[in-house]
C-alpha cells in the first residue's frame, strides 16, 4: 500500500493505543505539543486512581465469583481443572502486578516516553525520510493491533461456545475481558517500545551506511567525526533505555508468558481429551473453537519474540556497517578515533532484553518456550495414557 497511507494508519493506531491505555488508567500523562514532551496532569492521575480502585473491586468480586464456576471445559478431569485454576490465578496475579508496577513506576514510565521524544528531537528529526521509509515498523504495528483484536475476538468466541448463558456468566466474561485487555495493553507497550528502538537503530544504520558509502569531501570530515560521535551517543542512550524499559516490564512479561504457556498446554490437552472420546461431542467446529485459542496465543507471543530478535539483528548490523568504513583509507585521524570509539561501544554494550536475569528474549528462548510447552503436553498425555 502507499507509503503515506501506511504512515497515517499506523499513526492513528498508535494514537488509539495511547488513548485507550489512558482510558484504562495505565498512563496518567499525555503528549504536550508545544513542550514536545509528555507531561503528567492532575485530573488524569485522579482518574487513574479511581479507575484502578474500581477495577480492583471488580476483580475481587470476580475472583470470589469465579470460585463458583467449575472449569470452563467441564472435562471433569482433576488435572485439567487444576491447570485451569492455575492459569486463571496467574493471569489475575499478572493484572495485580501490572497495576502495582504501573502505580509505583509511573514517573519512570513518563521519563521513558520523554526519553523517546527527546531522542527524536535530538537527532532523528533530521532524517524524517528514513523514518518514513521504515515499512517494517508500520507492518509490525498492524500485526500487533490485529493480534490484540484477535485475542479479544477469540475470547468472546470461546465464551459463546460454552453452553451455559446465565446473565451472570455474560457479565462475568465481559469484566474478565476488560481485565485481560489491561494485560494486552501492557504487552503492547513493551512491544511498541521495542519497535521504536528498532526503528531508531534502523535509521542510525541507514545514516551510517550512507556515510560509509559515499565519498566525503575533506572539508566535511570534521563534521563527520562529530556526527559519528553523536550517533554513538544516541546508541548508548538507546541501549540504556532498552535496559530500562525491560526492567519495568519484566515481571509482567514473565507472568504473561507463563500464563500463555499454561493456557496453551491446557487447551491442547483438552483437544487430546476430545480426541480420546472422553468428552462426547467431537466435531470440526468444536475442535476449531479450541484450537483458535492456541493459534492466537502463539501468534501474539511470537510477535513479541520476533520483534526483539529484529531489534537485536539490527543492532548487530551496526558493526558490519562500521566495518564498511575500513574501505575508505583517507579519513582524518579523529574520524578514525571516533569510529574506533563507536566500535568499542558496540562491543562493550550489546543490546539485550533480559527478563529478571533469568533469560533473554530472542528466537532461541522463544523456541525453548514452545518446546517446553510441547514437552509438558507429552507429559500430560503419557500420564493419562492408560485412561485415554
Amino acid at each position, binding site marked *: 500500500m502507499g507509503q503515506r497511507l501506511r504512515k497515517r494508519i499506523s499513526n492513528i493506531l498508535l494514537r488509539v493505543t495511547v488513548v485507550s491505555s489512558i482510558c484504562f488508567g495505565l498512563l496518567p500523562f499525555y503528549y504536550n505539543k508545544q513542550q514536545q514532551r509528555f507531561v503528567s496532569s492532575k485530573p488524569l492521575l485522579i482518574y487513574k486512581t479511581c479507575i484502578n480502585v474500581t477495577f480492583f473491586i471488580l476483580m475481587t468480586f470476580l475472583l470470589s465469583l469465579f470460585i463458583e464456576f467449575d472449569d470452563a471445559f467441564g472435562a471433569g478431569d482433576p488435572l485439567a481443572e487444576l491447570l485451569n485454576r492455575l492459569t486463571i490465578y496467574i493471569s489475575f496475579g499478572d493484572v495485580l502486578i501490572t497495576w502495582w508496577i504501573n502505580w509505583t513506576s509511573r514517573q519512570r514510565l513518563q*521519563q521513558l516516553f520523554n*526519553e523517546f521524544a*527527546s531522542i527524536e528531537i535530538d537527532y532523528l528529526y533530521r532524517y524524517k525520510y528514513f523514518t518514513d521509509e521504515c515499512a517494517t515498523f508500520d507492518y509490525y504495528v498492524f500485526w500487533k493491533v490485529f493480534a490484540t483484536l484477535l485475542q479479544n475476538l477469540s475470547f468472546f468466541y470461546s465464551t459463546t461456545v460454552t453452553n451455559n448463558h446465565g446473565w451472570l456468566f455474560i457479565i462475568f466474561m465481559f469484566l474478565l475481558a476488560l481485565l485481560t485487555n489491561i494485560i494486552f495493553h501492557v504487552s503492547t507497550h513493551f512491544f511498541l517500545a521495542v519497535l521504536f528502538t528498532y526503528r531508531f537503530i534502523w535509521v542510525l544504520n541507514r545514516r551510517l551506511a550512507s556515510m560509509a558509502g559515499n565519498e566525503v569531501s575533506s572539508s566535511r570530515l570534521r563534521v563527520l567525526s562529530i556526527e559519528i560521535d553523536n550517533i554513538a551517543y544516541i546508541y548508548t542512550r538507546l541501549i540504556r*533505555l532498552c535496559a*530500562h524499559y525491560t526492567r519495568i516490564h519484566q515481571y509482567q512479561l514473565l507472568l504473561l508468558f507463563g500464563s500463555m504457556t499454561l493456557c496453551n498446554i491446557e487447551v491442547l490437552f483438552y483437544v487430546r481429551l476430545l480426541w480420546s472420546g472422553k468428552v462426547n461431542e467431537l466435531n470440526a467446529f468444536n475442535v476449531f473453537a479450541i484450537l483458535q485459542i492456541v493459534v492466537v496465543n502463539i501468534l501474539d507471543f511470537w510477535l513479541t519474540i520476533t520483534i526483539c530478535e529484529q531489534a537485536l539483528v539490527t543492532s548487530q548490523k551496526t558493526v558490519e556497517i562500521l566495518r564498511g568504513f575500513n574501505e575508505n583509507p583517507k579519513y582524518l585521524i579523529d574520524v578514525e578515533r571516533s569510529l574506533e570509539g563507536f566500535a568499542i561501544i558496540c562491543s562493550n554494550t550489546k543490546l539485550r532484553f533480559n527478563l529478571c536475569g533469568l533469560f533473554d528474549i530472542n528466537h532461541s528462548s522463544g523456541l*525453548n518456550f514452545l518446546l517446553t510447552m510441547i514437552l509438558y503436553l*507429552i507429559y500430560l498425555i*503419557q*500420564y493419562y*495414557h492408560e485412561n485415554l
Partner: protein
Amino acid sequence: MAHQTVQPILVHFGTLFTFCKLLGLYPHDLQAFRGIHTLQSSKIGTAIVVVTMLAVVVLYNLLIYFFSSEDHDLKASQSTLTFVIGIFLTYIGLGMMITDQLSALRNQSKTGELYERIRAVDEQLLKENVYVDISKTAKNILLMIVLTVVSELIILISTYITLVDLTDWKSILWLFSCFPTLYNSLDKIWFANTLSALKQRFFVINTALEDMVESHERLKRWTENGGDGGGQIFRRPSIANVSIDPSLEYLYKELTHMEAVKAYNMARNKISPIAHSLNSFGDALETPKKPYKYTSQPPTFNMVYESELNKDIEKVEEKLNNLCQLHDEICEIGKLVNELWSYPILVLMAYGFLIFTAQLYFLYCATQGQAIPSLFRSAKSATITTIFLSYTAGKCIYLIYLSWKTSLESKRTGICLHKCGVVADNNLLYEIVNHLSLKLLNHSVDFSACGFFTLDMETLYGVSGGITSYLIILIQFNLAAQQAKDASNAAETNYNTMLTTEAGNTTALMDYFTTTFMPYAQTDLY
C-alpha cells in the same frame, strides 16, 4: 649461541619416554632421543608399536571371549539393555588405546617439531632475559607415572584375587584387562606435561610484566617517601578530596533519583552545583601533575631505583612487542598440541562419561543381586569401584582442569599488560598498550575436543549433570524391566507396571526438561 644456554624440555621426559618405549607406545627413535633429545620418527619404532598394538588387541579379544562364556545366561536373565551396554562398553577401552596409538603414529613428525618450537620459545625468552625453570617437570612426570601404575596395579590385583577364580589357568588373561587404560594414561601424561610446560611459559611472561609493574611502583613509593618535595604534593589530594566530598554528595543526591535513564534535561537545574564543584576541583588541579613528574623525570631516580617503564619509550615498546609475539607463539603451540591430541582427548572424555555411568549402573545392579557383564566384575565390590572411578575421574578432571588453567593463564597476560599501562601513566604508553591489548584479545588458545566442546569447568558441570540424569534413566529402565518380568510371572502386578512405566516417562521427560536448562552441550539445540 643460545642453544647451550637453554636445555630442551625433553631432557626431563626421559623416564616417561623409556617407559613408553618399554611398553611399545611411542614410535620415536630412541637413539636420537638419548643423543640430542629430539623426537625423530623411525621405521622400527612404528613396526614395534603396530606389533604391540595387534598383540594387545588379540589378547584382549581372547580375554573377552573367554570371560564372555560366563555371559551366556546373562542375555537370557537380564534385560537386553544391560547386555547391549555391556557389549558396547567392553570395546570402548580397546578403541581408546587404538586411537591413542594410531594418533601417536600419525603425529610422529609433528611431535618433534612441537618440542622444537617450545625450545625456540625458551631461547626467545632468554633473549628477553627471562629464564624458564623446568626442573620440576621430571618430578611431576615421575609422580604421575607412579600414581598411574600403583592404581592400575591395585585395581588389577584386587579384582584378580577377589573376583576371578584362580583355579583356571585362562584367568591369567585377566592381566590384559588393564593394558588399554595403562597405555592411555601414559599417553595422557605426555599431554598433561606438555600442557603444563605451556602454562609455565605463559606464567613466566605474566611475571615478567608484573615485575615491571613492581619495580615502577617501588620507584614511585621511593619518590613519595624520600624527597621533601614529594611530601606536600602527596598531602594535597587528600585535602582536595575532603573539599570535594560535600559537592560530590550533593551531586550524588541530585543524580540518584533517576538511575539508568538519568538526567535528560538536567543541565539547567544543575549548573550551580557543577560550577561550584568545578572550582572546588580547580584547586585540586595540581594533583594530575604528580605521575608525570616521575615518568618524565630525568634518570636521577633511575640510578636509585630502576624501572623499565621509565626508560625511553622505544625500549619499552620493543620489549612489550616481543612479549606479545612470544605469547602469540605459545598460543600457536597450544593450538598445535590441541590439534595433535584432539581425537585421543575426545575418546577419553567419551570413555570417562560412559564408563562412569556404566560402572555406577552396574554397581546398582550388583546391589540388587542381578547378574552383570563379566568384564565389569569390579563393580561387585564397592571399594574397587570407588578406586577405579576415582582413577578414571581423576584422569579426566585433571586434564580438563589443566587446560582450563592454561587458558586462564594466557588470558591473564592482557590484564598484566593493562597493569603496566595504568601504573606508568604515560600517553605514549597508553597508545602502545591499546594496540597490544587489541592484539591480545585476538590471541585465542582454547582447548576443545574436536570442536565439539571446550575443555573447561563448565563442561565438567554439564557432564556431571548428564551422568546423574542418565543414571536415573538407566535405573528406572532397569526397574521397569524387573517389573515387567514379575508381571509376566504374576498377572496382578500389572498395576505396578503401570506405575513404574509412568514413573519412567515422567523422569525421562523432566530429565529432558532439566537438560534443556542445564548448561549441557545440547542446550543450544532446544
